[in-house]
């Protein structure tokens, strides 16, 4: 898994915040969890129809304001609602219906191709070296 830091603009506090981000070269869009979108003031703008592994997904879209290495980007993103129970590790007495680890987006965002394609080739190469 490639983890990098990205600055996400907080529309409520009017400042950039540092977020840990999963770089996902197979994701078309960037992804933000609904509970975080609410805290930093990103409202749903539209809906998009996508395929995921086991069927269709119709999330809301929003335009994220990101900053990476001092450059600002407006990036097409989707907002995914995560069950509140999945934001923590599974409890010992919890019925086994999910991985024991918390949801990967509990405290992170996904950076997909809608962001990666805006970078220069050397910036993309530099990010991919984190995989080694």
């Amino acid at each position, binding site marked *: *898994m490639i*983890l*990098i*830091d990205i*600055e*996400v603009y*907080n529309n409520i*506090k009017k400042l950039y*915040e*540092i*977020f*840990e981000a999963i770089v996902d070269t197979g994701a078309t869009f960037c992804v933000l969890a609904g*509970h*975080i979108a609410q*805290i*930093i003031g990103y409202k749903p703008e539209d809906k998009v129809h996508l395929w995921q*592994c086991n069927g269709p997904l119709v999330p809301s879209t929003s335009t994220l304001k990101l*900053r*990476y*290495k001092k450059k600002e980007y407006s990036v097409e993103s989707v907002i995914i609602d995560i069950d509140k129970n999945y*934001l*923590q*590790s599974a409890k010992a007495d919890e019925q086994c219906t999910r*991985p*024991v*680890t*918390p949801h*990967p987006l*509990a*405290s*992170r965002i996904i950076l997909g191709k809608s962001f990666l394609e805006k970078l220069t080739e050397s910036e993309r190469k530099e990010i991919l070296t*984190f995989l080694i």
Partner: protein
Amino acid sequence: MGLESRKWINKHLSEIRKNYPNKTIIVCEGKVIKTFDEPIDPVKINEIARELCGDKDWSYTYVSEHEEEYIL
């Protein structure tokens, strides 16, 4: 932005996994300066880190022992 701290996290990840399993850590200038159980809302982390680190280079990560095994 915490570019140096992120590099430090990526470089020391296996050691960090041993010492801080399933915790969120804040790293400032090559040192772990604060830990929390479980993932924390990033906005709260930013508030705490700004207070503790000021203008110094910092970053955070959720250190899961086994997370990567569970992502499709």
